[in-house]
């Protein structure tokens, strides 16, 4: 495989278009990033019971995430060790074993090969143990979020989350009993563009008033001031800010600009008044008002490299499909222990942004991909805010919301991974 001149392709303040368009780069990413880095595979509450499973992916690799009879998690490649058939086609379910439909090899949900029909045909020396399913060697759960890595040297998941961990904790701790339930279905979208276009955008406080103008205008036209993200009209003059963390994670913190109540700030929701009234009847006004704060988005874009984005009140997973094709899956979440009315409202709030906001983001991503086809315009610029840094830019953890330090930050992690063949040079 060709090696690339990463120092040339990834510079401070600009990156080369080929990172978005070159199939060879994409192929390397599918191991050096989606492989070696802790990659989000799913949530424990999707497979709560012994022998539950769900299909997922590690980059392009089809994976079955299982919970065995003892409750342990396994990430098994969905690939028969005989001739390669995907042994499981159901999206999710409960199964002690997976039987390959082609010639009937049977595997336990720990990956162990437990049956080969007419095995005498393989002779006496045949070793079943050599044909157990291949697996993602390291799987770890952080408060229900399950990650996997092919790397033996990646630090622990806690270390990988690093500075982003506090914000993830805060998102989880909105639940009265400190646990999210991810069993409420998903909204799925796809676009013709590279997966990193999502990352360029994920903590971008610069684009909102332009790319999302249709949503901003609708909100201003139909609703009183103070709904939606009106502070984004001039984000650098608002109290909101972005943070960058080691290993590529970024965080755009809207809450300082959102006023005292997230519920009052959220765009009106189907059933909003009905369920607020029902809750007040049951619990009284004060408790109802406090509980409703758990329904809307949490005022954060928390981006955990490479594929886990916490946005609004949900979990967005970035799934690369090809150098120019990406799927975005938005898993809705319930708060364990929350009032039922709050969890109902969370569903309707979850539908808001994919329908009203992400549609325009995805349009921008596709048009980036189209524009990046021009070989003569080589560079994608991400220098905004760099002038003020005097080279110290990225020591600063808190930056202005329109500052492209967030983009430079993930590219710094990305470059380490691509250069080292899949390891972080940092601690």
């Amino acid at each position: 495989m060709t090696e690339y001149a990463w120092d040339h392709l990834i510079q401070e303040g600009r990156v080369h278009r080929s990172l978005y368009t070159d199939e060879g780069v994409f192929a390397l990413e599918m191991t050096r990033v989606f492989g070696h880095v802790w990659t989000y595979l799913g949530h424990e509450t999707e497979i709560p019971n012994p022998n539950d499973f769900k299909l997922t992916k590690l980059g392009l690799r089809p994976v079955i995430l299982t919970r065995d009879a003892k409750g342990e998690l396994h990430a098994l490649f969905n690939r028969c060790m005989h001739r390669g058939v995907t042994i499981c086609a159901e999206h999710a379910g409960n199964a002690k074993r997976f039987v390959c439909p082609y010639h009937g090899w049977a595997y336990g949900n720990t990956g162990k090969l437990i049956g080969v029909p007419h095995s005498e045909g393989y002779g006496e020396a045949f070793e079943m143990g050599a044909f157990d399913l291949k697996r993602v060697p390291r799987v770890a759960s952080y408060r229900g979020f399950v990650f996997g890595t092919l790397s033996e040297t990646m630090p622990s998941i806690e270390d990988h989350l690093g500075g982003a961990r506090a914000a993830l904790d805060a998102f989880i701790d909105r639940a009265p009993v400190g646990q999210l339930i991810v069993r409420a279905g998903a909204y799925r979208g796809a676009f013709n563009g590279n997966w990193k276009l999502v990352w360029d955008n994920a903590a971008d406080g610069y684009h909102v008033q332009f790319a999302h103008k249709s949503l901003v205008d609708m909100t201003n036209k139909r609703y009183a001031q103070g709904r939606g993200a009106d502070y984004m009209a001039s984000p650098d003059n608002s109290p909101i800010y972005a943070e960058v963390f080691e290993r590529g994670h970024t965080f755009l913190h809207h809450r300082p600009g959102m006023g005292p109540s997230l519920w009052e700030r959220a765009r009106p929701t189907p059933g909003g008044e009905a369920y607020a009234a029902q809750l007040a009847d049951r619990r009284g006004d004060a408790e109802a008002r406090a509980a409703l704060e758990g329904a809307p988005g949490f005022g954060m874009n928390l981006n955990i490299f490479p594929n886990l984005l916490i946005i609004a009140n949900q979990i967005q997973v970035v799934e690369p499909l090809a150098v120019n094709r990406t799927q975005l899956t938005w898993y809705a979440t319930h708060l364990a222990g929350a009032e039922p009315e709050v969890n109902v409202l969370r569903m309707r709030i979850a539908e808001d942004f994919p329908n009203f906001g992400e549609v325009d983001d995805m349009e921008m991503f596709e048009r980036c991909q189209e524009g990046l086809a021009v070989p003569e315009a080589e560079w994608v610029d991400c220098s905004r805010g760099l002038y003020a840094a005097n080279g110290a830019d990225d020591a600063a953890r808190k930056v202005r919301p329109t500052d492209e330090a967030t983009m430079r930050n993930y590219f710094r992690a990305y470059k380490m991974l691509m250069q080292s063949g899949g390891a972080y040079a940092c601690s």
Partner: protein
Amino acid sequence: MPARDTVLAPPSASTYVNDALYARVMEELRWAAEAPPANAAATLRRTIEGFLHYEARLLDQGQFEAWANLFAPECIYWAPANPAADVRNNVAIFFDDRRRLDDRVTRLLSSYAHNQAPRPRLRHLISNIEIWPIENGARVLSSQIVHQHRSGRHSVVYVSGVGHTLRKTDEGWRIELKRITLVNFDEALEPPTLL
């Protein structure tokens, strides 16, 4: 002064989307599994077909406000992401009440809705219509194919089973519920303009 049906009413409180409504909406999926009565009156059938064709034409001609005003004041416009699941506790592709439906139309008609430029050309094809008469109205099942084309951008085809709950009012027929179950509800979608 534009004609009444091209103006959206101002947003009103969402007081009717409650447990009782969710129960009714889920009921819709149950009757859709049953056989319709042998012969709904021919005149009713013609009326309903005419209404569905008119609704489709408003969408195909881009008359989104007039289309939205075919819905009742307490309406639901719904595309399940999992038709087997209770939408009260599961996310949908969309589950709009009156207010959010009008939000949606307002955004689509904005000159800054980037995914609407160039404007998608839509064409709805409707067939396999079955009718269950109800008091002052009808429940209707149909199969629909929506072709969405954006010049120089893409063509997408959405194939779905659609359920309508329609009610006759003094102002004409109104849609209380429109449910669109895409055959690929569990796959990644190009976001539809309006189904």
